[in-house]
Each structure stands twice: as structure tokens, then as C-alpha cells.
């Protein structure tokens, strides 16, 4: 597969390490989250046949974490974002 890195252009997927569901960015708020929320965050992952937002780490490149929107059936990649931007957009800060 080829991942179109937002900063570096098209790169072979062999340069990346895959870490699955991009939901990992949504770490529960330690102040308020319930045990159920922590359980879901640590253990529950969607495994859709179709569009999937997932984390890829550019280990063999600039070490960016990316959020790649990929169709797990066709492998078509419709969107590639810098994970840091996604995290910020979701309200994460420090």
C-alpha cells in the first residue's frame, strides 16, 4: 500500500508501523471518566469491514503518527491526517 503522508508525500506502507483503531487518541479524562470508559478504551476496538480510521507510525521516516482513513475491504485510503492535528481538533492539549 501507499500512504500519502501529508508532509512527505506518497510513501510505501513498509515504512510504517500499524497500531489499529485511531480511537486510542480519545483517552478518557482521568478526572471524570468511569471504569466502564477506561475498560472500553483499553480493550474494545471496532473491526469494521469498510471504512476505518487507524493509526500508523512513520517509523522509517519522520516519526509522525498519522490517522489514516482506510477501507479494510478494498484498502482504498481516502484520507491521511497528522495525528497531532486530529488530537488538537478533538480538544487534547497537554
Amino acid at each position, binding site marked *: *500500500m*501507499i500512504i500519502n503522508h501529508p508532509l512527505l508525500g506518497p510513501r*510505501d506502507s513498509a515504512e510504517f*508501523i500499524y*497500531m489499529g483503531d485511531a480511537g*486510542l*487518541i480519545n*483517552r*478518557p479524562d*482521568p478526572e471524570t*471518566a468511569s*471504569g466502564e470508559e*477506561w*475498560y472500553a*478504551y*483499553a*480493550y474494545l476496538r471496532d473491526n469494521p469491514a469498510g471504512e476505518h480510521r487507524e*493509526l500508523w*507510525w512513520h*517509523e522509517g521516516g519522520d*516519526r*509522525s*503518527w498519522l490517522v489514516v482513513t482506510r477501507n479494510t475491504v*478494498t*484498502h*482504498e*485510503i481516502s484520507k491521511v491526517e497528522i*495525528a*497531532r*492535528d*486530529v*488530537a*488538537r481538533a478533538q480538544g*487534547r*492539549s*497537554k
Partner: protein
Amino acid sequence: MTQSNRLSGGQIDRNTTLKFTFDGKTYDGHPGDTLASALLANNVRLMGRSFKYHRPRGPLTAGSEEPNAIVELRSGDRQEPNTRATTAELYDGLVAKSQNRWPSLAFDAMAINDRFSNFLTAGFYYKTFMWPAAFWEKVYEPIIRKAAGLGSLSMQADPDAYDKGFRHCELLIVGAGPAGLMAALTAGRAGRDVILADEDFAMGGQLNSETFALNDAPALDWTTATVAELSSLPNVRLMPRTTVIGAFDHGIYGAVERISDHLETPPEGKPRQILWRIYTQKTLLCAGATERSIAFENNDRPGIMLASAIRTYANRWAATPAQRVTIFTNNDDGHRTAADLHAKHVNIAAVVDTRADAPFSSDYEVIKGAQVVDTKGRLGLTFAELRLANGESRTVECGALGVSGGWNPNVHLTCHQRGRPTWNEDLAAFVPGADLPPGMTVAGAADGTFSTHGALTSGANAAARILDIKPSDAPTTEDAAVRQTPFWFVEGCSRAWLDQQNDVTVKDVKLSHQEGFRSVEHLKRYTTLGMATDQGKTSNMGGLAIMAELVGKSIPEVGTTIFRPPYTPTAIGVLGGRMRGMDFHPTRLTPSHFWAKERGAVFVEVGNWLRAQWFPIAGETNWRASVDREVRATRNSVGVCDCTTLGKIDVQGTDAALFLNKVYCNGFAKLAVGKTRYGLMLREDGIAMDDGTAGRLAEDHFVVTTTTANAGKVYQHMEFVRQCLMPDADVQLISTTEAWAQYAVAGPNSRKLLQKIVDPAFDISNDGFPFMACGNITVCGGLRARLFRISFSGELAFEIAVPSRYGDALIRKLMAQGEEFDVTPYGTEALGVMRIEKGHAAGNELNGTTTALNLGMGRMVSKAKDSIGSKLSERAGLNEDGALAQVGIKPVNAADKITAGGHLMAATGPVDAKHDQGYVTSAAFSPSLDHMIGLGFLKDGGSRLGETMRLVSPVTDLTVEVEIVSAHFVDPEGERVRA
């Protein structure tokens, strides 16, 4: 030897004669020949024995789809089984052997299987070798393996090299037949970036097999001129001898180029094959078509071939399988073979055409509305038996029979991303479907365009359409309309071969249907139809057709099985490329490696690293002697160990402390500059991930260490936390593992040794540089260095780091300066012994199942702040009474052995999983205590010190009485590290 079946013409160089041997007999051939064409020219039809029944077999085809003529090529360590004689290029000195026969090809003892064929039908193995179950491995399997199977391996290491390479283009054209060549011409003349790949050594595809004129000249003239023009274009790369084996995601294609297979040995410095990864924007598939056979009784005798293959042998290689040939066809293409053979003075016994309206010929007899129903000839065809239109029988004497059942487009690559071909009623064949791999277009015969002119123009037009350019003009040539009516098998046939390589007959398909295997996928697996190395290129359609008739459905309703890469058999060697032996992964050498090698160190692989395991000296006969000495020397005076392999991560930024507070479960915000602290990282689920130290060199600068094994993983994790969880934190990370050579200098004399090296401006006395201090210093008169007063051994110890390029010099300096203290280098074994003596956790304890609590560090998990894993480490299930806790273990009888992996059971009572109390993770002989010691996890371990238990290892048959003790075997008060 005479080449009695050599005809006139052909693309062979008769001025040069090549000698080759087949089964020990020497023959002559010419450059341009394949092994199969040369053998046929020498009147050799019998080239192999079939897989199951050991039936005599000759070539069926003239290309890579060949099921029968597979041989062992070359000898010695280059011997390669299952090589298709039809694609093996002839070279001088070629050595080939037939396979799957004993004692000889002409007399094969296992041919007795053929007599027992009633028992050896589909599912034979499943049915017969079920009972008794114990017999399978010891009795049945070895016998079957010996009897069945194909060629044999050399059992020696492959002496040749294989490579991998990467190529990029705008348009990849797969197949250099009429469509592919015209496409390349169109794109090439427009200056576009093109790769044209073809599995054959001669480009031209089907043009090489035909006698049509192109632009009123022989086709070879046009092909030669076209290839010459393409070669002259700098934007066109021709890749002959290259099979595109798979269409992968996002325009990535796999291709195997056979660089040296046509030579006796690869030229100096050249690989045998290269696996290319071709990145392309667009692909044009011009893979052509494969002729299909017709099933009739005994249709597998040597001499019975696809009609087009006989034509190819005659026209391209000037060879014929026999001087008298019959053609059995259901379409006009079969007549072309007859006409071409006749023109080369081969006697046509008859053309048997299933159609009542077959075309007439004045040159040979055409028998209309007739069928071949059976054949004779033990080691090769002698007679064909016909059923005439009026029902009467007739026997025709012939040495070869060309069978033509029409053509199937080669759609394989169109299906590599789960696309399915669609049925074309006019051609009675599957053609590429709508869901092609993105970026792929199909042209020529592969798309069902079977006339030569049609293929030429379709290639040109497809390339023009893809690239938005003007198509090149195609040469004038034949443009006959092609109509194909289905005719798959002769009424009433039974032992009629569909899959000749796996010996699957019409009868087998019927049987499997009878037994309930009605989906094509089941049919395939039960009968093994299409599962041989040829992947059923000549057989799948016949099987489908029979299945369709049996279930009363149409062929498209029955559907096809899935085509998967690779298109043709691919050597494991070329997939591995250079990655074999020590090159399987990179080898990382420590800065002291060459020095250690000079010292005669024994090395051990730790991940990609090679680390010194111990340093034997004269007189030491076993590793324990060396390790014990290294431990004693370190504890008594001073030892040095290369610990460069531990991961080092530089953490900088105003939020560096905040960041470390997040990744470590214990606190780092208040760590003073110039101090180091032990840190434990948890996974988010509360399980321990890794441990190490972090030294604070400045307010905004920490140096983190990780274990050797987890260096990469921890760095990845820290980057995840930084970018995804703390996107606004001002913190930067970089791995500096390779940047610094780092040595542990341990033992009571370590300070004295270092004082001889550290520049005098730096006070490293106990007051000036106390336990857990760190700082930037200089050594040896100005060389920048880092010093950490940390200890894994439990002794007064330091770790000193210098830029990597000074690592070799530093170890030599330490050794020279340490002579007065008998400084001793120690390896990973002594390191391990000393950390077990101190009860320090390592990989065995941080094993992915243990929590901070288990490790005796439960209180380290700070409640004052949030960190990764802190929340879930509070889960009730991880904090129940009776949780495992790390303990030390020593044998009650000092001479007894302790092994890691053993389990702890009460002193008396049953020994089983239900009564399991814990397990031992690490064990070593302690030179300090003079007996074995261990670390382990025991339920409620902290409150059970002094208890006697049994250590049980059913695997090693060990039962030992042990005492549960503190994990800190040596200097439990920790006085030495603070000395």
C-alpha cells in the same frame, strides 16, 4: 544425435549447436530452443510421470501454463525440481532429469497405481488413511510422500544470490504480444514513461507462433523492428524474462526477472533472479489467452497437446512432436495448426472437427461432426479412436494429437484484488470483469479480442485512451472473426484428464459431486483440481463446465474459484532476496565490539545487537568459570560492561518533566537537576511495560534509558503519547542509542578507576557525586561525556557515556588505567547474575503479565498525578488479596538446582495446576553465595518469607525443596551503592 523432428524455419540459430542431457542421454539443440522444443525435435515426447498414477506424460503446452513436462533442472547444489521444460531456455551443457519415476522414466514401478485407479479417486486419502489415527504420521505419510510428490530438492544451500529492486513508471504493460507491443509503441512514441514486461525471453507473444504476414512481411520482421524501436526509446524499459506475478494495492506490482536462468551459472556478481516491486500509475494487461483442451478418454498420452502448442513448436522452434499429426478441434483455430504443419511438410492424418459445418481443406482430410473418443500408445500416442458423425468408429494412426477447445483470456491479474471475471456468451469464456484492480485496463486476447489485428489495435487504443494521446497505426494483418462454441468433453468419457498435473479426471469431478461437494471451492479442494503448481491454467474451465452440467447450472452460475498471486510458481529464494543467513536482519555492533573480539569474547544475539556474553581467559574450560570470575572480580574490585545497547531517549522542552510524569507511573516533576531516578512505565491496562532511568541534565532536558529489548517499542510509545495525547506539550524526543557509547563501571574500585579518567575539574567523590547523581563532564583531557551514578550490579557503580566514535578508545583506556585494580570486563551473563543477586527485575519479570504491585513497586504508582496505566492498575482484579509478589528463592539443600519456568507448590500435597502458588522467572548460580538462587512470583509472596516450598518442573522432571527469601540476596541494605 539427429534432430529427426526438426522442421524448416523457426527462430533458432542453426549455426550454433548446444549439447544437453536428459536422463543421462545427450542431445543437440540450438540457441532459441527451450528444453521442451529441443527434446521434441529429438523425437522425445515422454518427459515425465504424473503425480498420482505415474502415467507417462509429455508436454501439453508451449508455455508457462505447462502441467506435465516438469523436470529437475541442473545438478548438485543448483538442482531445481519442478521446472517447466516448456519455459527452460536451452544452454550448452544443460542437465535435466525426469522426476517422480523409479527406476526409469520408461519403466516406472509406481505406474501400478494406474491399475488401482478405482481406489485412488477423489478423496482417496481422506477416506483411506483415517484409521488408525496413530498410523498417519509413522506409516501412511512417509509412504505417500515417497510415492507421490514431484521432484527432489538438492538438500544443499543455494549458491546463488537473489535481489530485490524497485521501479517506477507511468504505464506498466504486462505482456509483449501484439497488444502489448502496440501499446508500448503508442506510449513510447509519445515520450511517456513505460515498462513493458514479458515472461518470455523473446518478445512478440503469439506473433512468434504464427505465420500471418504483418504489413505483407513475416510477423518476425515487424516484431524485430518494433522491439528495436522500443529499445531505442529512453523512456521505455523492456523487461523480457520477467513475470508479473501479482497485482497488489495502490498500483504496486510484483515481478520476477530471471537474470541468469538461461545460463549455466550466473555471471560473476549477478543475481539469479530479481524480485521487482513496480510502482505504476496505470497498468495495461496484455496477458493473452490460453488454449483450452477437450476431455476424452486417455487424453493424457505423450504426443497429445494443445493444437496451438504444436503450432508454436512448429513455427517458432521448427520442431514437431511427430511426423504424423491429428487435430481435434471445435473451432477454426485448430485448422490453422493443421495448415501450418502441412506447410512444413508434416503429415496431417486428419482434422477431426466436432462441427458439422467445419471448413474444407484440399490439403488434408477434415472429418466433420466427429470426435476423438479414446487413444492408444503405452509411452506415447500411437492411435486415436474416432466416433464419426454417423456413429461409426474409426482408428487413425498418429504420433501427435493437437486438441483445440477454444481460448480462455488470461484474466488472472484482474482478479488479484478479489475481482471476478464475467462470462462472455459469444466467446463461451470468462473475460475480465468490471471490478479490476484500480488503474488497470485490459487489452488484446486477455480482454477477449482474439484476432491479430484486433489485438494490435486494441493495445494501441487502450494505451492512447489511458494516457490521452494518439494511437499508433497498427500493421495490416488477419482480422478473422472468432466464434467459440463450448465443447468441453466427449460424451461418456470417464478417465479423461482435466488436471493433468494433479491427475484429476472427469470421473473424479463426477464422484465429488455425487458425494456432495457442489460448490466450486469444495470441488477444487476435494479433487485437488487446479491446485498443482500450474494452478489449473489449462484445467479449471473444464472442471467448471462438467460441474455446471452435473448441477444443471450454467458456467457463470457455478462461478470460478479465486485467482491469487503468484501468477506462476515463484522461488522462495527470490522472495527472501538478500535476507538470508546473517543478513536476515541487520546486525548492530557495540562500540566495544572489535576490542571485545580481540579479547576473545563470546557473543550473543540480543535483538539485532551482538553483545559480549562472557570473556573467557586461558585455563577456563566452561562458561560458568568465566562468569563466576567476572562476578567475583566486579564485586571485589572493578568490572566494566558495555551497556550501549540500552535504549537512550533524549527528552527536551519546557514540558519535559510534565511529559515524563505522564509516561512513568512514578513522579519526575520534582527530580532535581543533576539527579537520576528509576522509572517504571505501565501500559494503559496497568501492566508493566518497561523500566529504566531518567537523568535530569537541565530543567528542560532529561536522558531516559530503556531496556535493550524494548528500546524501539518504548520510543514508539513515547512518540504516541507526545503527539496523540499531549499535542500541545513543548517536548521533543530523539533516540540517541547509537550516539553514545556507554559503559557500566562497577565495583568498590570503580570510583578510583574513573578518577584516573574523568578530568580533575569534576568532583566524583561520594559527596561531590552521590548515589543517583548525573551530569555532563569531560574525560581524558576535554572529551565531553556524561556520568551517571547508577547501579544494576548493586555495587558502587557508574555509567559513563562518550560520543560513540570514542567508545573503542574509552574501553581501551579503562582497561589500561584499570590494570592496577585488575579491572575485569564482564558480559551479559555476569550482568544477569548480579542483577538476580540484587533482585532487580528484567525482561523475565517484566513479562507482559505483571503489574507494579507484582513487582513489589505498587507504591511507586503515584496517586498524585495521572499517568499512563495508573487508572487501570487500580482495578480490583489486579489488587486482590493473594496477588503474586516477587520473591527470592534458594534451595534448602545448597547443592540443588533451580530452574526458571518451574512452579511453586506447597511443601506437601498434590502437584497440579489447581495448587499452583507461583513460578520462577530467573535463576542463576550465585558466586557470592555459592549456591543457586532464583527470582519468582508467589501468591502473597511478601508475607511468606522463610516458608519452605517445592519447586516443580514437570518438563525437566525436577522437584526441589526451596525456601522463600527476600529477592535481595546481596547487600540487602544497599550500603555498597552508596559507598
